[in-house]
């Protein structure tokens, strides 16, 4: 029944806020392939429509907010901070987050050291903690240049580092996925864990920015 409108749109369609509507626009070649591959996998008993919907929901639920809560916990709880540094995946589990195979390695910024993450060979990213990576993380400019001129690249993100700070670049070449523990901003002594988590941006956990300063705070 070509060209008949679907009787009902799928339950999944519209259930995911924030993605673009592609239901009524002409299919590209690759979208046609997506339909074919998906239907073949279902016909072969490899998956089901419900499993695909569940996988999408699972990914949608992962976001930088999870990483931010983990960092805030490390800022206020030194035992947890040391655990996060020693075994990131175990710390995730203790915190109630499911690593789902993710081998997490946390690296910590200090007054003298700034860490930043890249994957030059593809675009490895701690997606089971932070969700899907931003576009710029996957593109040529970042992947090519960060390992050679990290200070110039960080400046393009608005982060100027003093010469006396050591920059440590981490190239995710194999099994580990990285998260930066940014420095806890000044003026946050009285903040709650939830308030602190609100200062931890995605970019600060990749290492291309600092954590945000609390509203109204001036150095």
């Amino acid at each position, binding site marked *: 029944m070509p060209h008949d409108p679907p009787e009902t749109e799928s339950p999944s369609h519209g259930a995911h806020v924030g993605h673009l509507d592609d239901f009524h626009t002409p299919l590209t070649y690759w979208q046609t392939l997506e339909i074919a591959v998906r239907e073949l996998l279902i016909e072969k008993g490899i998956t089901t429509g419900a499993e695909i919907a569940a996988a999408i929901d699972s990914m949608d639920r992962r976001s930088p907010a999870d990483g931010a809560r983990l960092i805030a916990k490390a800022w206020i709880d030194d035992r947890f901070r040391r655990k996060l540094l020693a075994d990131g995946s175990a710390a995730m589990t203790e915190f109630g987050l499911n690593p789902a195979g993710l081998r997490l390695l946390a690296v910590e910024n200090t007054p003298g050291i700034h860490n930043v993450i890249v994957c*030059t060979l593809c675009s490895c990213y701690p997606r089971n903690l932070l969700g899907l990576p931003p576009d710029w993380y996957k593109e040529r400019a970042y992947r090519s240049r960060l390992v050679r001129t990290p200070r110039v690249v960080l400046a393009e993100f608005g982060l100027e580092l003093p010469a006396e700070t050591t920059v440590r670049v981490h190239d995710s*070449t*194999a099994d580990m996925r990285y998260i930066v523990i940014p420095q806890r901003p000044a003026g946050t002594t009285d903040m709650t864990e939830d308030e602190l988590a609100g200062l931890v941006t995605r970019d600060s956990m990749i290492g291309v920015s600092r954590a945000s300063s609390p509203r109204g705070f001036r150095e």
Partner: protein
Amino acid sequence: MTVANPKPADRVRVRADSPPGHVRTPWYLRGKTGIVERCLGPTLNPEQLAYGLPANSVKLYRVRFTMAEIWGEYCEAPNDTLDAEVFSHWLELEETGRAS
């Protein structure tokens, strides 16, 4: 030069090989010398997994290089560092950092 079985603080050199096939050792590190930052234990060799083959167990290391070692002393900041994960079969032991 021996088959590398390094420990943290050992100096290791990345083999300057370029086999045409799937590998995980970035080009810019080949032939460069660094310090083992930590051992990550055994893992399956992705160079075999990539072809759908049964894979050998290989040891994985995090190796720290100075920017001066990788790019030369006139690089952006010679004392900045780069850490990467390198599989044991890509490493040669230069000298141990262990007290002996």
